[in-house]
């Protein structure tokens, strides 16, 4: 039996259990309307606590929860549809859409970066996505057909989620550091350093910063946390050992890809701190308080 078939058996028939829970064919429990209502109630409880304690999130919390429900439902419907169509072009199209959204999110998350970085970010994320598909999907999981949306799309989503935060962190850190190191950079240039030599300290610092969450998640996986993907698979009724293998593959891929992404994005953007004549000139939008 291939891991794919084990993991992603089609949810067709439902069996209603004696105690009222709903179980699908492969042993996972569906969440019925009652379950959804309880979850919404939990959000309302949190909102009420926020209102009583005057935390100031009583407006944003329900709005965010509503957005989450709609976005997740939309993703579920779209994914279900693409999986049903099982056509490679739909897979590619959806991945392009995810990429576009990821660029947008990266730009909004990174603090104080120069304008016009979207093409570089797109290139970086696209490269990491292609690498991910080639290595993780085609070399490790090897689904049939090669474009199997059930395998590619969830993996791509997880990968993007991680690379987006790594790239946003690295970019913020890099430009912040280059601003702080202004005297240092100008002195190095005066001594005959190339822009690359003058930026190296900041590039290193930014890469370290971008990788920190990944290293932390690698180290704590399995002890402190059961990572989302593994938890999901176990909940979905799969063998926990298979889930663990998948989780490790994903963590390994994420650590490599965030490193590649950070190196690539910094390589693409470090020159933005310099003019065409190798002079230091960094134009950042004014700080938002």
């Amino acid at each position: 039996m291939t891991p794919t078939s084990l993991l992603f058996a089609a949810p067709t028939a439902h069996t209603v259990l004696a105690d009222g829970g709903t179980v699908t064919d492969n042993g996972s429990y569906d969440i019925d309307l009652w379950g959804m209502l309880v979850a919404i109630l939990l959000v309302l409880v949190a909102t009420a606590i926020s209102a009583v304690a005057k935390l100031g999130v009583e407006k944003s919390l329900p709005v965010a929860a509503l957005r989450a429900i709609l976005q997740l439902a939309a993703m579920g419907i779209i994914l279900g549809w693409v999986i049903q169509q099982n056509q490679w072009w739909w897979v590619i199209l959806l991945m392009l859409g995810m990429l576009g959204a990821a660029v947008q999110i990266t730009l909004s998350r990174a603090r104080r970066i120069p304008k016009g970085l979207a093409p570089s970010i797109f290139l970086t994320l696209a490269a990491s996505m292609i690498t991910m598909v080639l290595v993780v999907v085609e070399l490790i999981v090897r689904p049939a057909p090669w474009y199997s949306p059930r395998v590619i799309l969830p993996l791509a989503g997880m990968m993007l989620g991680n690379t987006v935060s790594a790239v946003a962190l690295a970019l913020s850190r890099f430009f912040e550091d280059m601003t702080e190191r202004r005297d240092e950079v100008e002195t190095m240039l005066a001594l005959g350093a190339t822009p690359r030599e003058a930026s190296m300290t900041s590039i290193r610092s930014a890469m370290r910063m971008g990788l920190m969450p990944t290293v932390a998640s690698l180290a704590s996986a399995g002890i402190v946390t059961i990572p989302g993907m593994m938890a999901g698979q176990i909940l979905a009724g799969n063998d926990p050992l298979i889930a663990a293998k998948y989780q490790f593959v994903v963590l390994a891929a994420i650590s490599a890809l965030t490193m590649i992404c950070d190196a690539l994005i910094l390589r693409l953007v470090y020159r933005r701190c310099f003019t065409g004549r190798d002079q230091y000139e960094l134009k950042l939008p004014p700080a938002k308080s």
Partner: protein
Amino acid sequence: MSRDEEPDTGRRDEPRERGGGTQGPVVLTVRDARCRLAADTAASTGATKNTDAAKNTDGADGAASGNGRLVFDGIGLDIQAGRIVDLVGPSGSGKSSLLTCMAQLNPRATATLTLHGRPASDFTMQQWRHHVAYLPQKSTLFGQTVAEAIRFPFTLGVAKQLPSPDDAAIRSALNAVGLADIELTRDPHDLSGGQSARVSMLRSILTKPDVLLADEVDAGLDDDTARLVAVYMARTAHDTGMAIVRVRHRPPDGMADCIATLADGRLTMRDTSSRAMEPTATPSAAAGAASDAASITTSERSAS
């Protein structure tokens, strides 16, 4: 090339009075230097319409022309080997901008530059800055020890092939500028402002540039130490033929062969090599005398 059409300002004039100063060949020529005011940050992308940019041989993008106020415009000067030029003028007159312009470090400034008769376009930016070394007013040292800090330039690609100064050379240079009590292994972070300013100066001088552009090296020094630094610079200029441009706010110390005054966007030069000392002249008096003597805007020597 437009450079040749301009009047050759004074470089072939026989110095009428030959004093103690060394008269070397022209190392660096600056023509048509202009610098935009730093204030405008937004309006820099659309400033390329001015065709003057085409004249610049150093690949300038014309950002310094076009809109915006100018700190100076059309300045020119010649720097001769082995001579010390003092650049004086009121604060805000653009003295530092002129120095960074010559080192091609100033994004708001452009100029037509030659080094040993070769246009700036013959050099990479890194080579140019290795030969025309700008020494910033604020000293920033790299590395764990003073020796490392001084050898830092030799870790860069542009000077990797060159022999870095050995411990003895660094030691004697430190001794010469009143840093005899600083061990080579001292952490640069532990140095005082005046000490690190001198270490930073030695770092630049020991790379043996053709031109040293020293931006207020002696600003934070007491009179005796400033004197040591001035003597060390003068000896370096005399012994190695290094040309030195100093921006100073102190009274003249008699070391300069020439005083250049930058005020209201004009540069006036006055040869002082015949006189050993000018005890009475303050910087402002010198500036006044210079502008009286030369009323033509650019690169006129009052002597000619």
